[in-house]
């Protein structure tokens, strides 16, 4: 195998894709060591580790021609790997497992970015909601896609869903700040910053801390990709782990470096990204390295999902790639 030659070729192709718009044609033409990741949202600190790995050249060192696709409200990450738009994606484990169980989707979870799901209930300190019971009698805004998670916490804490009012959350915390709603379901790593900028103090609790013990941004591939691109996936995990470790070493260092690239024109501020990056550090890090899925963590996921009627099994989590890193 002419490894050196193909690797040079790949780096050249990588440079070409970096310069041009990522199109279907260039992706199809790229060599076997290419890997495309569909992200779960648009560019913010949630994905800082991947941006760090790209800018620090970690994927290139691994011989990977890596393409990063931002996500958005209409992007269902799992769809991107089913339709072949991407090889690997970040999901919420409840949707992924549900798709495996109910629709026979051939997914494997090969790692997790968050050991603890950052999703929680954010409220104002002057009218605090610090545990699920505090939600009774309140109006809580929940993005429709997260209603399942909030209902799970209600069930796990034996709270009657009709004892509170759930309304849609349209990404804007203004109604919370102005007191139109009492709490909203959001990443606790992010929205408290905005609220503080508006002169209010926010408090929050994690759904994870009240029984809904699931991961988030689980790294998911199709069984097919796992077979055909195993080597690339291991390389991806290795480079991404390095990127995350580097980024989290000092959470205030990397976000400013992305001001003119990844975070340019996103509508958010670098200070917000630093806050986010700092807050997510304890939720991502693991003694055995970022992405680790240990037996205890997997068992907790299976148990929490079982509580809301999603029958996860251990074989849906494939830890063998992490061991190869």
């Amino acid at each position, binding site marked *: 195998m002419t490894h050196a030659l193909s690797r040079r070729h790949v780096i050249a192709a990588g440079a070409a894709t970096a310069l041009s*718009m*990522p*199109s*279907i044609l260039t992706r199809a033409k790229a060599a076997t060591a290419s890997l495309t990741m*569909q*992200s779960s949202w*648009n*560019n*913010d600190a949630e994905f800082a580790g991947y941006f760090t790995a790209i800018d620090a050249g970690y994927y290139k060192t691994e011989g990977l021609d890596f393409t990063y*696709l*931002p*996500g*958005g*409200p*209409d*992007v*269902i990450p799992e*769809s991107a790997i*089913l*339709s*072949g*738009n991407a090889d690997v994606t970040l999901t919420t484990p409840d*949707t992924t497992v*549900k*798709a495996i169980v*109910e*629709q*026979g*989707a051939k997914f494997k979870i090969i790692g997790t970015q968050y050991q603890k799901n950052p999703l929680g209930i954010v409220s104002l300190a002057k009218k605090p909601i610090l545990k699920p019971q505090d939600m009774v009698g309140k109006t809580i805004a929940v*993005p*429709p*896609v*997260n*209603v*399942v998670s909030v209902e799970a916490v209600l069930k796990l804490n034996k709270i009657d869903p009709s004892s509170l009012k*759930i*309304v*849609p959350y*349209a*990404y*804007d*915390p*203004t*109604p919370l*700040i*102005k*007191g*139109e709603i009492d709490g909203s379901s959001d990443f606790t790593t*992010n*929205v408290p910053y*905005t*609220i503080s*900028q*508006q002169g209010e103090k926010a408090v929050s609790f994690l759904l994870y801390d009240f029984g809904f013990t699931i991961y988030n941004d689980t790294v998911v591939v199709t069984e097919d990709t796992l077979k055909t691109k195993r080597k690339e996936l291991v390389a991806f995990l290795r480079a991404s782990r390095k990127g995350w470790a580097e980024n989290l070493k000092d959470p205030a260092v990397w976000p400013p470096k992305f001001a003119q690239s990844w975070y340019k*024109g*996103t*509508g*958010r*501020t670098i200070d*917000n990204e630093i806050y986010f990056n700092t807050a997510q550090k304890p939720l991502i890090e693991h003694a055995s390295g970022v992405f680790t899925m240990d037996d205890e963590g997997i068992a907790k996921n299976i148990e929490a999902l079982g509580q809301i009627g999603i029958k996860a099994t251990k074989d849906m989590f494939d830890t063998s790639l992490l061991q190869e890193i």
Partner: protein
Amino acid sequence: MTRTDSSGRLSTALLLLGLVVSWEIVGENALVARGALPAPSAILVHLWSDRADYGPHILATVQSATIGFLVGNVVAIAAALIFVRLPLVEQLSRGFNIAIFAIPPIAIAPVLVLALKGDWPRIALAGLAVYFPTMTAMSVGLRDVDPRATDVVRAYGGGPNAILRWIRLRSSLPALLGGLQVAAPNAVLGAMLAEFGSGARWGLGTYLLGSLGRADPARLWGIGLVATVISGLAYAIPAIVAVLVTGRSRAVTIAPAPASLRSLQPTRPLTRMLVLLASILVPLLLWWALVAMSGLPSIVVKSPTGVFRYLVTDASAPSAQARLFVALATTIPLTIVGVAAGLIFAFGLATAGLLVPGVVRALMPVALVSQTMPLVALTPLLVLLLGRGTTVTMVITISVTFFPAFVTLARGFAMVPRAAFDLVRAYGGDGYQRLSLIAVPASLPYLFAAAKLAVPRALLGVMIAEWLATGGGLGDLLNRSRGTLDYGMIWSVAFVSVVLSIGLYQLIALAENLIGVGDLRMLKQSTMGKANSQRSDSDHARNAPP
């Protein structure tokens, strides 16, 4: 005359100024919605400090919108040419055309993101938004030819192709440009909506999504204002071309339609039945073919049979049906009330335009901004002002419904000859009597045209309100289904919302036939002159599918 004109313009300008000043005072002092309405000065200051951000976003939106505009219009013009030469194809495409017209963009956007790659969801949504207005305008333009001109070509031995080339194509230009004028802002809004959802790196929709989390209304209004300006320019460019190419008078009027569209339909009941059946099958077959051609896995992309299985034969079908019925039970009544509310509002505004034209002219900029301002940016303001009940649903629905209906009705009122009003005035009738005796009966066909335009928009408005503010209904079901990877339901909601929209549309068409607007037209023809009634026919055809 000039004196009253200029004084009218002055009072309009004063009113508009008063409006902006009171908005400034209200915004500056946080008098409305606990300060969720920013003052105009705050918006402009913010816009200026954000100016470095806008360039690449505007460029991306304009690029997607332009490509979508070109692709959509090429298809629309080609379709119109085929329809004119082969009326049977038009009959068969009727279902397809209405379906394109009736698709609620928020229901189809997730489906486009599932099925298409790269920039194509953005381009496709922009293209879908331009197809219908251009296709109808071009069809009307191609048919509205001076019979004397075609006689000349025929006399010199020219066939249908020669007539198409020498007469129809040329005379269709003003109508085509009119259609492009409606289509261009649609393309901008379509591209933005898709950017918002589809994970685009650049675009005003992307910028809006990123900015939403800041709790910073001035930024959001700034984005809305930029979108308004781009849409305004998109509207103005075809208008300027129209003036340059066809002259002022031709650009704003449409030549009389020579043949009623009804007369083109096959007369034998059996043939008519078969054509109707085929026209229903065509969009389904097209859907089938596109799914098959895409080569995407059937778990993600559902064909018509896939949706049928999901809703009827699968083991989970009863649960899916139940959820869909519950959602429809919420959405359908609201949509029907929303159509009525939107029409009443439009009618009120058009009437006011007749009675106090200065006030309505001053309100027009506000009305235009309301059409291009992304509703997701206004949600906090709306829920703070109106809560999360039926009121907010109705206000959102009216705001997305009234404008095209108002334009149609105002045109209807404008078509009434001055002499008819003078007659009432001469007998001492007041403004109300002018309205009830002349304007309303004469504009009935326009009211139906407006109602047809209002139906898909009312459904869209209700779904947006459900998605952003109230929860429940089809809008909420669609979003929850995304959260649970329920692809079958995502496609079912898209399908059902199109069917619902077409169903309500056909009900209005039926009501139009029952009330006998046709007879009324005959009456108008004898009392108000021939040209007018024919004009109403062609306008009617332009705004809504026949």
